[in-house]
């Protein structure tokens, strides 16, 4: 079970540190765990793994396509690979390798894409994936996840190590807002219900979870009761929870650090259209490229804020 912290603050431990700690702990007990990177070991934070398990740590050089294929080949011999690059290069650059060598071949590969959306900050538009989840969304059977904080990330890495299939983990590298109490556990494919409400349901992922909780608190002050769901699994989306909250709240706001086309808004809307039609407003990136700037600047630039969620919530309610 999971528990939401009463106060949301920046975590003291970086996401990448939690990631590698979890991997090392898993690898101590399971010699099938292997880690691959494409000349970003210093960025992804997996250096401790390379030090502790040099025979199972592979720096492929700047060869993302080859890396994904090598990961697929390793898994065909029963190993459990975790391969990393920055989000755009771990997805759109290697879409066909993930599609054919991993998914179509029914192999067992975990791909980590770091620096989602505006968190790519100074690396700018070339490195700023607003489309990573969307790029992979239509690959049959793939699982797409975006952990919120280190607690959810640690649980997720352990959980995925024991599963079979192709998994994409969209991970913030640096310090996340701590949303969950230590030791929280989740269910893959099931939304975490962070707050109950009856007027509108905010469906949020990644850095937008903190904004969603802030927005819900603001709405509460204005007499609007907002539920908050954390759909850390984008695919498969939790259709049951969405139907349940369609009945409870009657309208939705999706909040994502991603293009609304092919992203969370698309996944939520498609599910609701099929099961429980309800108005859905989107907070996210509206079909634009990324650009350079601080994360704070870019959050404002692309309207990825609690204020935008509040406005969208009111609009969604007005459409009921």
């Amino acid at each position, binding site marked *: 079970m999971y528990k939401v912290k009463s106060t949301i603050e920046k975590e003291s431990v970086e996401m990448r540190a939690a990631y590698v700690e979890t991997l090392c702990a898993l690898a101590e007990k399971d010699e099938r765990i292997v880690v691959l990177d494409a000349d970003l070991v210093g960025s992804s934070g997996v250096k401790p793994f390379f030090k502790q398990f040099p025979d199972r740590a592979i720096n492929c050089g700047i060869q993302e*396509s080859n890396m994904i294929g090598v990961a697929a080949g390793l898994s065909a011999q*029963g190993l459990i690979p975790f391969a990393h690059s920055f989000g755009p290069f771990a997805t759109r650059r290697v879409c066909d390798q993930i599609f054919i060598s991993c998914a179509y071949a029914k192999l067992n590969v975990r791909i980590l894409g770091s620096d989602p959306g505006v968190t790519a900050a100074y690396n700018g538009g070339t490195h700023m994936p607003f489309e990573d989840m969307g790029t992979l969304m239509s690959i049959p059977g793939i699982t797409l996840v975006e952990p919120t904080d280190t607690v959810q990330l640690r649980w997720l890495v352990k959980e995925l190590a024991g599963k079979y299939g192709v998994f994409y983990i969209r991970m913030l590298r640096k310090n996340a807002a701590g949303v969950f109490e230590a030791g929280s556990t989740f269910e893959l494919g099931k939304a975490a219900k962070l707050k109950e409400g009856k007027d509108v349901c905010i469906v949020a992922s990644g850095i937008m979870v903190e904004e969603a909780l802030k927005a819900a608190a603001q709405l509460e002050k204005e007499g609007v009761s907002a539920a908050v769901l954390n759909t850390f699994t984008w695919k498969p989306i939790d259709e049951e929870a969405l139907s349940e909250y369609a009945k409870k709240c009657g309208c939705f706001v999706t909040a994502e650090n991603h293009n609304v086309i092919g992203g969370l808004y698309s996944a939520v809307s498609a599910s609701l259209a099929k099961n429980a039609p309800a108005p859905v407003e989107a907070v996210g990136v509206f079909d634009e490229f990324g650009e350079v700037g601080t994360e704070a600047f870019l959050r404002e630039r692309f309207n990825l804020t609690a204020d935008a969620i509040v406005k969208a919530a009111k609009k969604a309610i007005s459409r009921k």
Partner: protein
Amino acid sequence: MKTNKELRVFAEEIRVETLKEIGHLGFGHIGGALSIVELLSVLYGGEMRIDPKNPDWDDRDRLVVSKGHSGPSVYATLALCGYFPKEMLLTLNQGGTHLPSHCDRTKTPGIDMTTGSLGQGMSTAIGLALASKIKKKDNYTYLILGDGECDEGQVWEGAAFAPHFKLDNLIAFVDLNKQQLDGACDDILYMGDMVDKWTAFGWNTVKINGHDIEAIKEAIANAKKVKGKPSMIILDTVKGKGCELAEQTFPCHHMKFKPEQIAPSIEKAEAVLEAVKKA
């Protein structure tokens, strides 16, 4: 390992079955399927450590046919080895078949890797070979690339990777049959001298007649003696080898024909098989 004569017979059996298989369908990637028949004969005639009764045996050698469109001759070989009944060959490319146009590890017993998007088998073969190193196993991974396939950038990513990781358990082949879909490889995209290229990338490289059973055996035996680097055996081959109709057609990468057009080629291949048996 079969004797050289037995391997020659096996090769012609593979050729005849491949022709019947594609002939029954009436179209297919006939050229590249036939140019690797002698190699398949050597690999499955004893070179590879395999057990057709136990296709998932962990200690087996692996073959990645990265030029996945050559599936039909690989299927013929697997059927002749007993992985599945020979009658199944006539289901090639039919709806619901276990034998799709391009190799698929999830559908066909004995197929070790899914291929078809060119260049990708390079990397998956490397992954298989690297896994054997990590698991401290002594098995080999074999890889067949097409010469046209070498246009793909991913091939050259792998070409740099495998020597760096000292994958001496990876033995690769380029089927230098000199044609790709649109015509002659040298006209479509000239790749220069393959031996120079692979040698420059750090591979133990040799070029041989790809239809010479003894030369293939010797090249593989030599490759196994080389430590610390992968081996590349460039097979100088004829696209459509042993099929009169294909050899007389340019390009013969993919052909469509009527039963009466392919029948004489099948008869001639059968005659060659009988002659090799009697020799």
